[in-house]
């Protein structure tokens, strides 16, 4: 059994995840509404209750990559002055 569940879900705001959820299972959010959830019973129940759409790790990584690539391209198109203020978004590797 893999350590994590990968998928997408829309953060609906307050109580999308609670303090108790954070104590019950691993949870990490990424660009593109991608979530990596600890693969235990509580994590699986939480993800299902949020209408999450399960992805393979590769699919989830591709969504994040697309988001970061778009952000990098937007940064590359900035003027040098604008670039000096902000930082170029880094690639993200899902756990």
């Amino acid at each position: 059994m893999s350590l994590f569940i990968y998928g997408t879900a829309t953060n609906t705001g307050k109580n999308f995840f609670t303090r108790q959820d954070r104590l019950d299972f691993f949870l990490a959010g990424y660009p593109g509404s991608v979530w990596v959830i600890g693969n235990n019973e509580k994590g699986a129940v939480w993800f299902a209750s949020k209408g999450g759409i399960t992805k393979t790790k590769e699919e989830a990584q591709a969504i994040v990559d697309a988001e970061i690539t778009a952000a990098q391209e937007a940064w590359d198109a900035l003027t040098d002055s604008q670039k000096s203020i902000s930082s170029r978004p880094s690639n993200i590797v899902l756990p």
Partner: protein
Amino acid sequence: MSTYKELFGKYVRSVSSDPPATNGEGQIWYNTTSNTFKTSTQVFAFSSGGNLNTARGWVGSAGNQTAGIIFGGSINPYPSFTGATEEYDGSSWTSVSNAPSPLSGIGPTGVGLQTAALSFGANGGAGYTNNSAEYNGSSWTAGGNMNTTSRDRSGAGIQTAAIGANCYIVGSQAEPNSETYNGSSWTAITGTGTARYEGMGFGTQTAMISCGGRNPPTSNLTASEEWNGSSWTAITGLPQGTHKGQGGGTTTDGCVFGGVGSPYYPATPVLNNKVDYDGSTWSISPATMSTARAYFGGDSATSSGIYAAGGGPGTYTDATEEFTGSLTVQTLTTS
């Protein structure tokens, strides 16, 4: 070896079921059903809060997780300056009066309360500013002008007793330049020992920690300093170089969280961690934000009241997280 009775004057009670967590705070008991020693302590974690009405980054912020305020920054795509201001009540954000131009822009520093906030320094569409503005819970009015035009200072204090430490100044970039505000005028004070900008600050006008920040092109700083109202003293550095995170609390019970970590150049790793300061040592909290972020808003006069709203990397988010604790029964282990 000392016994619990010798140390605390009473025996450990044996019970077949745990008492409510709220009744067991500070006590140790033996659960005869699970054959374990237990106690009740505050356990903290980040939970989701209400989403911002306008996703953005590079904001100013003040208040706390039940009465917060964010203002200014850039909406998507960067750089699209905004003066939009939103108040948070612990569950939802409400749009209120826009912060005035030129404080509508990136890198305003915010201090104070939701009903008495102060914004100073920023890079708006018209360039950098030395303006400050005060929010009274319903509208913004002009505050005193700073002596130095700048952005992204480490801020602390309240609207009538604020401090802005180090900053970005056009031309020289990272500067130690620091100023205090008394509710009507700014006074230049001794600069920090380390020139930097986009660092984190917390505390009060007379007892503040300024930490992290950057001094381009490659230095993401760990350097930390304490202000006692008259001078800066170098203290233990952050566990890793960090800039554009947030800070909260006091000089003896403070924290910084999120930000761009190290090595940041040319990469920009964004952090989800919270680092606590107890007056002498930084330690990494087991509580982490679910989403790593920098360029966000979040404050509190107490380390337990912090929140994080907006920020990046990449496309700015509307998501909010709150640092919340609750008494929880825990099993004692030897590890």
